[in-house]
């Protein structure tokens, strides 16, 4: 009896956790919307007395967002599952993705975002050629490449080719780096004949 009671209460706790996890994004979004709604009060009101003013449009959108998020949270909390249309969409997406073999790996996504953040943060210091070679190497390693030579070759060649392409064809002013990295980039550019 005691074991059954514990089993039932454990089951309910699990269900409660699932509901909290599912409603949390809607509640968080609604909270952000409320904060932004308050923020609209600080807009310098340049409108005349008879006009709607710059806060009217964002306030309307935020009010709608709060309402919709509230409705979605209530639906989820009451256990109203995805509609038939949503399930059909999920089935369609599953059909499109049923060629993938490995289970989802959100850690890989975290690592990829980390590498891209490091790239954007270091681009000014390292310069495009060095930072890009490191970015490509990092992404290839996360993507499943294990042998070092293809990774080194693809990242160095990819960095050099895109550097030449973007400077010579698209005329993008790419960061060249600072200090010793600038000298290294300029040396590579001189060697490759890129101006």
């Amino acid at each position: 009896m005691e074991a059954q009671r514990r089993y039932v209460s454990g089951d309910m706790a699990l269900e409660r956790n699932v509901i909290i996890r599912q409603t949390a994004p809607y509640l968080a979004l609604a909270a952000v919307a409320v904060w932004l709604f308050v923020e609209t009060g600080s807009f310098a009101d340049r409108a005349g007395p008879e006009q709607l003013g710059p806060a009217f449009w964002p306030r309307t959108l935020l009010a709608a967002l709060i309402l919709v998020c509230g409705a979605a949270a209530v639906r989820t909390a009451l256990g109203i599952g995805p509609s038939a249309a949503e399930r059909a969409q999920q089935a369609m997406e599953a059909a499109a993705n049923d060629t993938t073999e490995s289970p989802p790996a959100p850690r890989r996504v975290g690592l990829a975002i980390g590498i891209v953040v490091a790239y954007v943060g270091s681009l000014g210091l390292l310069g495009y050629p060095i930072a890009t070679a490191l970015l490509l190497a990092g992404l290839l390693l996360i993507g499943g490449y294990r042998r070092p030579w293809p990774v080194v070759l693809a990242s160095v060649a990819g960095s050099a080719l895109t550097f030449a392409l973007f400077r010579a064809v698209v005329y993008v002013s790419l960061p060249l780096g600072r200090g010793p990295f600038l000298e290294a980039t300029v040396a590579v550019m001189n060697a490759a004949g890129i101006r």
Partner: protein
Amino acid sequence: MIGTITATAALLTTPEALALLIMGLVAGLIAGILPGLTLVMGIVLALPFTYAMETTSAVVLLTAMYVAGTYGGAFTSILFRIPGEPLDIPLLWDGYAMARNGDAAMALGYTLAAAVLGGLCALLLAILVAAPFARLAISFSAPEFFALVVFGIASVVSLGGGSLLKGVISLLVGLLIATVGIDDVYGANRFSFGLPPLTDGISYICVMIGAYGLGEVLVRLERGFSTPRSVGGARLRTRLPSLIDLARVKGALFRSTAIGVLIGLVPGAGATVASFIAYGAEGQYGRRRDRLGSGIPEGIVAPQAASTASVGGAMICLLTLGIPGSGATAIIFGALMLHGLQPGPQVFMSSPQIVDAVFATILLGLIGMAIIGWVFVRGLVRILKAPEALISAFVVLFCLVGALAERNNTNDLWLIVAFGAIGWALERNAFPIAPMVLGVILGPMAETNFITAMIGAGNDPAVFATRPVAAALLCAAAVMVALRIFRSRQRDRAEAIGSHVAMSGKRGS
């Protein structure tokens, strides 16, 4: 019509334009074929290369990619059971079945014929209808344009698959992103929090590149990359159907082409919706509807003709109303804006050469796409052997440099990363991305026209009800959303009754 013929001749005789057309077609086919690279993503990646081009050249490149992209995914659907794009999913059912029955070459032939014939019919209609449509649209003022945007966003939300609530949330987030920075009417600084990069506003290019480009790579990275296997074997080729074969499927072809054009005309409903509806219509009204799914030509012709025909309809919508209805037309819209051209009815007066260039590109694109698809089918399919991890790494790089190229501002790179993560999070939780992106693009248009209409009417909202076109469009938008809710409830109820009956049956037995 004469303008299109002249533009076609000009395209054919200008080496630079012809080279761009071929490059666009090849790039569009590759984007359609590679499962790791969607059509919209491919067009996003091509965008930075258009910054230094003339407007016409940019339009030629991007439109050619759009046309070819609706066909490229057919190869992978039929031969490998991999839909390169969501629009290719209906091709899995009969296309792959026909290939598995040992007639892959014929399945590819029917796809090619359907794409070309459907596309040509839609183009002809677009040429005939676009100018009168634009003349009507030029008489619109702020209330009509606001109503038109509302109709557009209502159709984006209600015609997109999945949850209506999630679609609305994604749309509202997009519309809110568009309010960041100095507003157009009052000049007030909104939601910039003292950060100078936000004062300029958030560029829709960053949102598009981040959500569609980086976000899509992150989604595929999370799911893992795969190695496809073909059923076509070594004798891979395209065998065109004879005229008698085509005559047998003419009903499916015309029905689906009409559906494609009509769906393309509706803002928000792109090639994917057209493809699914055409297949559904074939299942309801087709002569051989009982055999659909077993590998019959009608099941191949219907989705392919509709998806390629939707390009013509979508272009009418973009050029005459200035409303991008799909991800691909949103990027072409962005490219035109970057070149200082506001899409809309005025384009027909101010820059008719752009309209002619679009139609000429679709015409030559369909022919070129057919030649490339027919002659180089083996080479195109070999592209699938390119490692997805390598392609994805370069997609990320091109996304970042693409954003840098637009304004040469490193702050945009942070926005790309942020919107990449947002795109991944949205996709992971089954929130559609398209409403957010269209919200960012259409937001300023909606707000400016709404405020202008209200100022003009002395803050009386009745202005939207007393003007017939605006009132009709707003009613149509409301009906569309109401129908969507009603149908969704009806389907839920039918399922609930079905499961109840099944449960009772089980208990009884």
